[in-house]
């Protein structure tokens, strides 16, 4: 369906002067950055630096928490996602999300989990098409071989690593352009982590990835670009430095970036 598609440059996601609040507390201040289409961009920084908040602003998941507020713009296709004319639910089908903790729907089978998002759209498909889409999505998430004989078992019967890949398959089945990943491997073992990193590398080009991670090795291994965020005394989380990952992790320009990636704090 979308195999072999390459994302054109206008599919680049970008933020302009993005500022986010929880009540009166500002968690993220004035972030302007680009998430290259078809590339993997990592967001790193110590706890409380606003990297997860930034990620959640990119598909308007920040605003579902009562009392929160966002200023500035997030642009995709040149359109501001925060424009009142934009339908947030349609937009979220273009910008998918994978969460820190695997969250398959326990009352659904594996295949129903994969198709949960597709079934929300009114694009009526026949059974074979749905089955094909499920298989395709599970293959992309590198889970097909492990679950093909138990597609009708509960999604929660899988191991943690498999559950997370199931959630990735679920996000991919909606055929998004961007996939936001909020520390997708932080609760997983090293082998599962490797599988997820491998599939990200496999799928980039077709999808734009934004990954929040605590794990700097992971950011260095998997990402093309890296943004370093930091909350300092009296300044809420903001973007300190952004560049290609090879630059950030070898010759950072900012002293604070260097201190962080060499493990001097955070």
């Amino acid at each position, binding site marked *: 369906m979308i195999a072999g598609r390459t994302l054109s440059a206008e599919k680049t996601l970008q933020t302009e002067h993005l500022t986010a609040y929880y009540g009166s507390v500002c968690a993220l201040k004035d972030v302007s950055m680009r998430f290259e289409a078809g590339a993997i961009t990592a967001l790193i920084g110590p706890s409380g630096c606003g990297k997860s908040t930034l990620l959640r602003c990119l598909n308007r998941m920040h605003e579902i928490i009562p009392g929160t507020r966002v200023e500035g713009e997030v642009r995709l296709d040149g359109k501001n996602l925060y424009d009142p004319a934009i339908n947030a639910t349609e937009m*979220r089908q273009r910008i998918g999300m994978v969460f820190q903790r695997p969250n398959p729907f326990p009352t659904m089978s594996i295949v129903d989990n994969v198709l949960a*998002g597709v079934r929300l759209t009114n694009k009526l498909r026949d059974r074979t098409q749905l089955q094909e889409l499920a298989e395709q999505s599970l293959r992309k998430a590198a889970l097909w071989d492990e679950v093909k004989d138990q597609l009708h078992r509960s999604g929660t019967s899988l191991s943690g690593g498999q559950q997370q890949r199931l959630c990735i398959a679920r996000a991919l089945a909606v055929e998004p352009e961007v996939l936001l990943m909020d520390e997708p491997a932080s609760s997983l073992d090293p082998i599962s982590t490797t599988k997820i990193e491998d599939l990200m590398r496999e799928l980039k080009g077709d999808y734009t990835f934004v990954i929040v991670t605590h794990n700097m090795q992971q950011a260095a291994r998997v990402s093309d670009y890296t943004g370093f965020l930091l909350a300092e005394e009296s300044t809420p989380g903001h973007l300190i430095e952004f560049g290609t990952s090879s630059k950030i992790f070898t010759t950072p320009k900012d002293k604070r970036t260097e201190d962080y990636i060499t493990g001097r704090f955070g």
Partner: protein
Amino acid sequence: MATESIEIASLPRTTTTAVRLRGAQLADRLVVGFFGLAAWLVLLVVAALFVTLAIAAWPAIKTVGWPALHSALWDPNNGKFGVLSFVFGTLVTSGIALLLAGPVGIGAALVLAEVAPKRLAGPVAMLIELLAAVPSVVFGIWGLFVLAPVMRGAIEPALARTLGFLPLFQGYFFGVGILTAGVLLAIMILPTIAAITRDIFEAVPAHQREGMLALGATKWEVLARAVIPYARSGIIGALVLALGRALGEAIAVAMVIGNKPAISASLFSPGYSLASVVANEFTEATGQQYLAVLVGIGSLLFVLSMLVNVAARLLVWSVGRSQSAARA
């Protein structure tokens, strides 16, 4: 962590640590013993209740016997003890109550947990929980003086006009009867259902909602496809608890059901229930047999409630199984 445990392991077992360990083990055993005793005590009370009831009801079972279960003729003065009309009254009034209160209670809980602003939902939820604590005799008085006249004057005529082609809604409007008892029971179990299901909805983890939302679901789709399925077995549990209260309610039902041991197709007609016949006639029961039959009716109610509970557990269990065996 690792080094610490090695140190502890390689530490020579001095007498003081040994004594301390023995003390801790003793404390562990005491705690386990105490709570184990409490758990067994509950079972013991249930068993004792059952045995006492069975012994007291034995003369009735021996003399009246099983035929009483399929006879509706209740004439204690002439030794006729058919209990079928009571079973009918209990099941039908409880069924009506569950049918009415179930959807309303779940709907109210959904609104309180998911839609209403927190500032409003908190106080309203507290009021609902307060309603659950109102004594049943108060509900009974209200039912007799407020609900019954309204049923007779407005609701029963309206039902007869619109659904009168069904035998259920034909006949005289008494005000007191099966339908009124069912409606009153519905009002009584509504707070139980609403309060518990609200807690269940609130306990649905945020990651389930966010997972559905992030796939492009609307608020209602999140409720219908993530929140309600997740809460399903808990909701069934709340309904069972409410049904238990409805089955066992004696006083309020006795005040509005009409107290007539008869089975009628019309919901307007008066009836009787297991619990209310025991409450009404226990003090007036003359003779050993009459008393024993009433205790037997109590046992029957006990068994009936247990059967309903078992059926509900099976339902929860089969729902759980069909979940894991769900087809595409």
